[in-house]
């Protein structure tokens, strides 16, 4: 925690600040130390899980006994891990596709409707974000249970909880996310291109393909990846609206955690982290590539979108 040395030259160049220099240095040093500590705080848990997944010891809380891929073998051979991993993909991919397509469609459609309908949608979008996840999860479960009971006795069918209910529940939240991202992008878009395209007698469809869509692509990619990741990582909603055959990897991990973390848990968790980080990387690549094609600088586009979507 040493205070960063301010070069003497810089100090001489700004005589007005010389009087306050020691104080400035203390503040800067404290800010820098604080930043380091926060990054340590943020990464320590992730690092612990990853490092201990390579530990050959039998217990997750045991001391470091040596590097080994043993627990990855155990995890990959585990039938439950295989099925829940497959289920995670079966749910996350359709969810991301539906949320991205419907969210983008709605964002485009909302440009064409009156102010009142737009306000209704604003309220609904914010509501799906404001209402705590656990409340949404439980009330959706109550809806499914009550609705399926009624439908089953009325039509002599057997509707139960399964993939469709989980996907439907995940899409609700992700739809709002995509809607917010794409609408923000549409609001910041340069309309003159669209108008120029229309003036040059392009059909609306052609204008969309050549002008609107490329400009929306960053929001589109970010929305898809966020939706996939949310679904892939979600525990709360999935645990309440999934059926016996449709439990996902987070449910498996939660069960393991409740029984006591094992090195296998760490190995599964590390693989899960790998999948989501790979996606983040792919998203970044796509955005950089697209930005370069469009002749713009696209560094850290993904992180900008994610950090700004949160605000």
């Amino acid at each position, binding site marked *: 925690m040493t205070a960063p040395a301010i070069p003497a030259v810089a100090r001489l160049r700004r005589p007005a600040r010389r009087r306050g220099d020691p104080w400035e240095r203390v503040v800067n040093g404290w800010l820098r130390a604080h930043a380091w500590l926060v990054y340590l705080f943020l990464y320590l848990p992730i690092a612990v899980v990853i490092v201990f997944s390579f530990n050959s010891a039998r217990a997750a809380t045991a001391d470091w006994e040596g590097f080994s891929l043993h627990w990855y073998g155990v995890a990959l051979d585990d039938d439950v891990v295989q099925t829940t991993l497959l289920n995670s993909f079966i749910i996350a991919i359709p969810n991301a596709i539906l949320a991205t397509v419907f969210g983008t469609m709605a964002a485009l*459609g909302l440009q064409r409707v009156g102010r009142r309908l737009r306000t209704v949608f604003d309220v609904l979008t914010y509501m799906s974000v404001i209402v705590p996840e656990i409340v949404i999860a439980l009330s959706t479960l109550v809806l499914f249970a009550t609705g399926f009971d009624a439908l089953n006795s009325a039509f002599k069918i057997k509707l139960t909880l399964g993939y469709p209910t989980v996907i439907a529940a995940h899409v609700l939240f992700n739809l709002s996310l995509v809607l917010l991202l794409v609408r923000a992008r549409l609001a910041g878009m340069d309309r003159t291109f669209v108008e120029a395209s229309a003036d040059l007698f392009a059909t*609306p469809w052609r204008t969309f393909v050549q002008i609107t869509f490329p400009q929306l692509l960053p929001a589109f990619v970010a929305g898809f990846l966020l939706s996939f990741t949310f679904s892939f990582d979600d525990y709360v909603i999935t645990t309440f609206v999934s059926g016996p055959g449709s439990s996902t990897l987070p449910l498996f991990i939660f069960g393991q955690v409740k029984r006591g973390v094992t090195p296998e848990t760490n190995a599964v968790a590390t693989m899960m982290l790998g999948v989501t980080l790979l996606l983040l990387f792919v998203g970044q690549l796509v955005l950089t590539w697209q930005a370069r094609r469009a002749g713009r600088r696209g560094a850290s586009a993904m992180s900008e979108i994610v*950090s700004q979507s949160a605000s």
Partner: protein
Amino acid sequence: MSTIRRARPAARRSSVRGRLLTTVLVLPAAAWYAILLISPLVIVTIFSFGVRAKNGGYAPAFVFDNYARAIQKSEPFVLSLEMAVAGTIGCLLVALPLAYFIATRVRRRKGLLVLLLVIPFWTSFLIRTYAWLLILGPDLGLAGRLQALTGADKVQILGTPIAVMIGLIYGYLPLMIFPLYVTLERMDRTLIEASKDLGAGRWATFRQITLPVALPGFVTGSILVFIPMMGEYVIPQILGYGRTYLMGNALVTDFLEARNWPQGSARAVFLIIVMIVTIAGYVWFVNRGRSTRDVSVL
């Protein structure tokens, strides 16, 4: 905005086809909201006035008992509120200096530092939470080390509100950092220069320029952090061993273990109402006396 939109040639042709297209574009999202957002909330509101059926679930009635009980036995709610308020303040104390540092003191590596904030936020919440079991636990964890160091009989961190608080702050910290960073980043640096030129001290400048500029970010951040903390379920389950009994745990007990749907419904409706009132009041309080409303919920 609306004048520009009206001038667009495409919108001028409000033909049948145009309207059909609009409907088709909006319909899936509208259906989703209607079926999976509005109807569950409506059902829960209706159920909250009912009574528990004999075998659990809901039986039609119109009573206010559930609300009376939800308010009488409001310990989980009060505890949730305390934890969420403390957690929000904790997040602010950790986030503000960091956001301020990245926005004002870093030049070249800004993108990298922001990316490093996004990565934990992007990775599984469940995994990041259970990792604290290893860090805070006995034996090799912090509790074990403290025990060995102090020679105390038993140091217990997991299963206490402290562990839950660490988990809450850790889990939602990025949601506080991002909005603060975005507002501080947009801050007009010349304001600070002007303030200093006019003879204001560091503290006066910070209090009169930086804090007001950061305020909208803080409001957004605290709402984003406060809401999920109020309904948190996973963190108290894992790090609190279910002993720190928050609103989320109470809801799950009502619905799934006691199978008293009306009771759970009343609790849920109560939570939603309190939250909407709190957030609306908070936004109003922060914006009072301002001519422009520059704080949106998100």
